[in-house]
């Protein structure tokens, strides 16, 4: 659905990273973890295209006016990477945004008793909070492995901890948690679990590839949430495609990140990057 949304808050949670809360129509409350929105940053023609952003959280808020009914809100966590996101960061409470969504597929929660290991790199944490919330709600044991270049890239960890999720952090410069890649701590936990777990990951391509390889080697299910350059978000432009496992030039099997993803089972994709 397409709707006009009002910004309820827009806060810089870490240098260059922003968390925005917006009003949403009633139907938006049913959004799944892993889905995304396409946001029109301004009504002008530059920037022209919408920006795809993960849904960080959804919930209900009660407007300040007395007698108001609770209304759904949603949150986006984004990093300023260019002109469009810089304009989003400059918006304030009560500003309006044109939003398309929720779009795409969500994460599959799997069986409730298995431990869920969530791996996020930098802004890749954006779709993972709502996932963690849902998994905790179903009674699954959940652990978060958050990685980044430095402590500034480790986002909203207290939010995950408040859910009761045990969090491991690793940074490349050692400024927070273990020094190095978060996949080291992930591997340790998998060794302890002896292979009974489900993996969820979102982050840079290198991290996703490493997590997919760990999952493949141990034959455990792994879902990844991907990013893609896209113009439309509804499966028309074919800008955001990724090669499926059996893809070749002779037998093309491109998957649209926007409509067939952004969440994919890692084993359904070709990990060439």
């Amino acid at each position: 659905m397409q709707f006009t949304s009002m910004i309820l808050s827009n806060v810089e949670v870490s240098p260059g990273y922003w968390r925005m809360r917006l009003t949403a129509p009633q139907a938006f409350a049913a959004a799944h973890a892993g889905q995304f929105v396409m946001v029109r940053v301004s009504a002008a023609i530059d920037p022209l295209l919408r920006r795809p952003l993960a849904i960080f959280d959804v919930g209900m808020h009660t407007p300040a006016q007395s007698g108001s009914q609770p209304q759904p809100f949603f949150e986006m966590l984004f990093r300023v990477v260019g002109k469009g996101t810089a304009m989003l960061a400059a918006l304030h409470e009560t500003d309006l945004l044109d939003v398309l969504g929720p779009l795409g597929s969500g994460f599959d929660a799997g069986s409730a008793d298995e431990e869920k290991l969530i791996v996020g790199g930098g802004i890749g944490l954006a779709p993972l909070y709502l996932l963690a919330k849902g998994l905790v709600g179903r009674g699954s044991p959940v652990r978060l492995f958050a990685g980044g270049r430095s402590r500034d890239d480790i986002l909203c960890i207290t939010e995950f901890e408040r859910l009761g999720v045990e969090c491991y952090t690793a940074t490349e410069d050692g400024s927070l948690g273990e020094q190095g890649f978060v996949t080291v701590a992930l591997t340790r936990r998998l060794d302890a679990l002896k292979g009974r777990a489900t993996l969820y990951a979102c982050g840079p391509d290198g991290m996703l590839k490493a997590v997919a390889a760990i999952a493949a080697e141990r034959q455990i299910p792994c879902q990844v949430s991907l990013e893609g350059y896209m113009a439309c978000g509804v499966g028309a432009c074919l800008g955001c495609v990724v090669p499926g496992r059996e893809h070749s030039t002779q037998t093309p099997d491109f998957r649209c990140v926007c409509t067939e993803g952004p969440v994919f089972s890692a084993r359904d994709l070709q990990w060439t990057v």
Partner: protein
Amino acid sequence: MDRLNMKPDMAVSVAGIALRNPVMTASGTFGYGEEFVDYVDLLKIGAFITKGLSLKPRAGNPTPRIVETPGGMLNAIGLQNVGIDAFIAKKVPFLRSVATPAIANFFGDTVDEYAEMARRLDDIPEVAGLEMNISCPNVKHGGIVFGADPACAAGVVRACRAVSKKPLIVKLSPNVTDIVAMAKACVDAGADSLSLINTLVGMAIDIKTRRPVLANITGGFSGPAIKPIALRMVWQVARAVKVPIIGIGGIMNATDALEFILAGASAVQVGTASFINPGAAQTIADDMEAWLVANGVADVKSLIGALET
């Protein structure tokens, strides 16, 4: 005229296809129609054009395939499509369910492939007309784009005309020295209508990596930034040929669409705008009707080529 009760006549005819209004959706921006049913009432637009089809499925180009530029975007999708067989099996049943003309866009690597496509599409009753994309390299002639050479374009149009009775629209490339010569050659070869413009070849560079942004290096430039060029070409071509023209290029709203109609277009195609607002084509058709009402214009056809110079 009683403006309050007026219902303007929005119907136009292009290449013998009756359209309830002049607003169509451009190939490659509207999937096969079905992708947009949540956003567009297909009964409120004139027609929709399918993603470009080929004999065999096409993988398309590597990614990145898309980059935004000020006022526009570049795409190098590489004509990814399901191929004619899957189109017939999986996409045509939807076309049957919609009472809006569906026009099949198609292309080939050789004249024979184009003709084979035209012949196969001619057999599909759900396809109201054909739109030929001639902006493809001619494999047998050193890769020169069909649409960049009048004789080459005429040859491929003639081959398709000979095997198809359906209305035949030829989509012109703007990447030529003389668009009027191209237009005349296609009409002489049997085109019932011309649609223009296709995208302009462009590129974008990342100075940090010193690499092109698109994996394909170059891509097709579209969006509001190209509208002045498109308007100029539609105006030139409309004066030079007698067949109906379909104006395309950066149409974002009803004002843009009306500019093309004044320049000589009988209908328009909305492309990139559907990426930003999936309901754009319907909004433009609605707003165009409202403009006619507000300005006391009883029949949209009276605006076609009504530019005063």
